[in-house]
């Protein structure tokens, strides 16, 4: 680096001021102008985070939201050169620093993850695929899914209820988000533990439904395998209609 310590210090202090808003004394300033930089920079961050998390922004008290955004930008060094990915860093910051506990908002982790998942999936790079044939047997042949999906485990059903109600319904929830090939729109499907397990096993381990059904007794007591098989066939058929299943071959 060719910069002198003085030049580096001036740049560093200006950058720090833009992040935390704490006044600095820099040489050669035009009076009353430095605050424009703090205002402009912080507005970009504030707008970006607000737009990424409209539900969290709506439901969290304003003073808590402001604290999260202020802390995030002043403490966390933003790493991504693409500003649209900044919300992911915000999610990680809020979770790592346990703001949900501090502000008694247990749903916060799930809500931020859910809102980010939609944005990430909508924007993420294409994973090219083609629809195959559906001539195969649902139970015994290989099922292929649309690869542009996120399977999100949740503690609170914030994909179904507003946060205030979801807070009262702690449990094990799963939501599937996938991107429609033609429109690019995001579809949401509320899943049971079984269907979540099934999607995970098919996509990660390339198993057939029949192979996965072998695990069912370990997951559920008093389960009727025949009933589960029947329901699973109906589920897969519905996912063909939704274009999440792209081939059975």
């Amino acid at each position, binding site marked *: 680096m060719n910069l*002198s310590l003085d030049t580096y210090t001036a740049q560093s202090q200006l*950058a720090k001021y833009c992040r935390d808003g704490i006044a600095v004394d820099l040489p050669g*300033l035009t009076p009353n102008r430095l605050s424009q930089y703090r205002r402009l920079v912080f507005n970009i961050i504030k707008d970006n985070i607000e737009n990424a998390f409209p539900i969290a922004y709506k439901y969290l008290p304003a003073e808590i939201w402001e604290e999260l955004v202020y802390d995030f930008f002043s403490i966390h060094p933003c790493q991504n050169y693409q500003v649209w990915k900044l919300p992911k860093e915000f999610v990680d910051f809020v979770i790592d620093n346990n703001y949900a506990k501090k502000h008694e908002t247990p749903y916060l982790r799930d809500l931020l993850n859910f809102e980010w998942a939609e944005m990430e999936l909508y924007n993420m790079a294409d994973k090219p695929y083609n629809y195959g044939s559906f001539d195969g047997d649902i139970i015994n042949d290989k099922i292929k899914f649309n690869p542009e999906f996120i399977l999100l485990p949740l503690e609170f059903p914030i994909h179904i209820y507003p946060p205030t109600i979801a807070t009262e319904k702690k449990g094990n929830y799963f939501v599937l988000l996938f991107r429609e090939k033609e429109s690019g729109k995001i579809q949401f499907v509320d899943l049971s533990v079984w269907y979540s397990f099934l999607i995970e096993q098919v996509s990660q381990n390339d198993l057939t439904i029949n192979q996965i059904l072998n695990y069912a007794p370990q997951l559920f007591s008093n389960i009727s395998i025949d009933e589960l098989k029947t329901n699973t066939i109906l589920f897969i058929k519905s996912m063909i209609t939704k274009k999440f299943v792209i081939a059975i071959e």
Partner: protein
Amino acid sequence: MIGLGYRRDFAQEFISGSIIKPDFVEVAPENWIGIGGYWKKQFNQIADKYKIACHGLSLSIGSPDPLDFAFLKNLKAFLKEYNIDIYSEHLSYAKCDNAHLYDLLPIPFREDAVTHIVERIKIVQDYLQRPFIMENVSYYTPVAAEMDELTFINAILEQSGCKLLLDVNNVYVNSFNHNYNAKSFIDGLLLDKVAYIHMAGHLQISDDLIIDTHGEAIIDPVFDLFDYTAGKIQPVPILLERDFNIPEMIELQGEINKLKAITNLRWSKKHELIA
């Protein structure tokens, strides 16, 4: 050639080309690298219809931090994928102490900063294997300056061999905010280095301060300054920037037409979109 900054807000208008008819479009590569889905499809339609120029946001050429070669690698691939000739950036910094700030901060106008930036421009030019174009930015206060803005810009242009993206509105904004003569500033620039021009609107927020918002129509004094500048340089591509407060398309086309009228009078030769 008169181009227009591409915004998702009016993507369909660009694609249909029924009202708005730019000769090329400019995009920030950071907004499009690695994007898929709906917006990728839209972008591909834009790329099929228009020549594309890139104007970056996050290279942070004046930063004390090391250059981000992971970004440069993605950028190079993006420029190649869309056959993009022009890549320009801001003479500012947007990252410091390992933290992105997502806006353009003023570099101290100092000799060591010139040396630092010249070295980095050469590295970027070498890596991207293309001439690099640096834009004069608007600034609201100098910081720890030891020379004036004009000396600073010219020194970088001269020593690095890079081209100049002359933002005429920024010259106007800076001349107002820092009380100097805009035409004298233009006269003092190394005008043979100008490869590209930006035009935009701004917002005056107090008696002595204008903010470079890109959210208003271009005012007449900026058109006048553009006319003055055009009379002193060879033909280059012109870009109309409009990022906020988007008006009816017919208004933007009106601004494009006005710029075209000026260039038609000033420049008889047809100019190409090449750096």
